[in-house]
């Protein structure tokens, strides 16, 4: 079995008496997008800081690419890229100069650095404005530039802390598409996000932490199945239709409200339930899945609180 690219074992971090991380254990497989979810102050940024060797843990152990985060953090930083919760751009320097500086910092030879800078700027649609000061750019462009910087040296692993936070719909979509492309080329992504739809769409696995402790860890569908798949159905003749489906084994709950049915199912596929409703004389206008991961997330956090 291939060694995980990130391995965390009983990691703790105390700031005074406050436990930012409280026995966190998890692992991340290579070539995947790993979603690290949690509320503000849950311990996500502390975890990333420890994995990058920027903060020393109070206890436990962690390794990235097989290197210990305390004793071999230089090796880790050489091989990973990071887009942290701020863009970290030198706003008075041009986009090209920002990338050139980090290309040299990663010791890319001059000709390779030039080629890489041009490639990542072109890939992210920023090449034409490379001579503009980074500070004159929109938030979305700055975020894309920071993403370009993080992948400049072709890292095996990318830490991305809220890469689409504050972006408009178009920019966020461009970033998500770009991330999917990176994983297709073999990069592993460790992603923190507050956007549950994004996590559900992108991530092969998600971990939910709260108050520095791991609440759940698995494929998004596994977390969803714990709380059920929500489906909202709108149509005509829904009154009384609940009785036709409520006894089905795949229906966890069924509530009729405001002229619609709100169902919670054990399966992500509602087609059998819809067929029963149609057979019961319901004329269906719309079948819409709920924001599943968000429900599961909220339920877990509420239980822990």
């Amino acid at each position, binding site marked *: 079995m291939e060694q995980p690219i990130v391995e965390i074992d009983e990691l703790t971090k105390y*700031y005074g008496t406050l436990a930012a991380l409280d026995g966190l254990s998890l692992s991340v497989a290579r070539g995947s997008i790993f979603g690290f979810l949690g509320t503000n102050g849950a311990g996500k940024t502390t975890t990333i*800081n420890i994995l*990058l*060797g*920027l*903060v*020393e843990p109070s206890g436990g152990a962690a390794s990235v690419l097989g290197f210990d985060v305390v004793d071999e*953090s*230089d090796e880790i*930083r*050489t091989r990973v890229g*990071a887009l*942290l919760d*701020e*863009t*970290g*751009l*030198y*706003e*008075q*320097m041009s986009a090209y*100069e920002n990338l050139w*500086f*980090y290309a*040299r*910092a*990663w*010791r890319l030879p001059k000709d390779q650095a030039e080629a890489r800078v041009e490639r990542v700027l072109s890939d992210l649609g920023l090449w034409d404005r490379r001579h503009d*000061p980074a500070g004159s750019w929109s938030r979305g462009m700055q975020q894309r530039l*920071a993403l370009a*910087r993080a992948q400049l*040296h072709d890292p095996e692993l990318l830490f991305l802390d809220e890469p689409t936070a504050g972006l408009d719909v178009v920019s966020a979509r461009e970033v998500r598409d770009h991330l999917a492309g990176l994983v297709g080329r073999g990069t592993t992504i460790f992603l923190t996000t507050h956007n549950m739809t994004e996590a559900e769409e992108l991530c092969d696995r998600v971990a939910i932490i709260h108050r520095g402790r791991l609440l759940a860890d698995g494929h998004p569908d596994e977390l969803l199945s714990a709380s059920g798949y929500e489906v909202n159905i709108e149509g005509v003749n829904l009154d009384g239709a609940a009785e036709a489906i409520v006894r089905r084994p795949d229906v966890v709950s069924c509530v009729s409200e405001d002229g619609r049915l709100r169902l919670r199912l054990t399966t992500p596929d509602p087609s059998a339930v819809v067929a029963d409703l149609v057979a019961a004389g319901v004329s269906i206008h719309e079948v819409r899945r709920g924001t599943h991961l968000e429900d599961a997330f909220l339920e877990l956090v509420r239980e822990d609180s």
Partner: protein
Amino acid sequence: MITDMSTVIWKEWKSLFRQPGSRLRMALTVLIPLGYFGIIAPLQAGGEFTTGAEPWFIAVVLPLLTVIMTAPDSFAGERERKTLRTLLASTLSDSAILWAKLGFAVLLGMAMMIATLVLAMVVVNLFTNTTGVAAIGVARLIHMIGVSLLLSAMAAGAAVLISLRAETVQQAQQTLAAVFFVIPSVLGPVLLITSGDGESGPVVAFFDWLGTTSGRLTVVVVLAVLAVILLTAARVGFRRTRLVS
């Protein structure tokens, strides 16, 4: 490490004149001393400039002023502009980041001093009535450059040490200015008041002693020791895991 340092120095140079308001501030910081010590003072002193106190003033005050203006930005500026964590997450080594930032401040201070001295020599020789070529003696020049280098290194060490902990550049600059200007400006008058008459007190004797070979050597040694202490403290104080909370 040299390549990494040159990379950081390149970035520092690119950033230096591009901070908001920094062009005017830097222009004033550079042009006013350069204009006064490089043009006005030599014109007033004429040929005596080379043996007078002015070159020493250039060697002591200008590098200090330059370092105090630039070095506090080294880490506090990165922290204030939210670029520090990304810089620390790069593969640049602790030593390369620290020595490059220190070295950049010292280089600027020395460049400022040498540019002003060269300008002053040109002015003295071209625009004043001197017989032959007026120049600062080699031994004096070497002594001045040595003292200037040590003072710059000492100030840069102190500035970086303060900058590592300061939240803002302004806070770092104020703390450093207090160390280098307020303490001497308070101690100076106190010494003068307690030194008796102006011709034979301990202060006069001290300055006379500074002119002797043993006095000069002592100053160099004291500055060297202070510079080593402050640079070592800056190196010990610079650890990635202490800079990110």
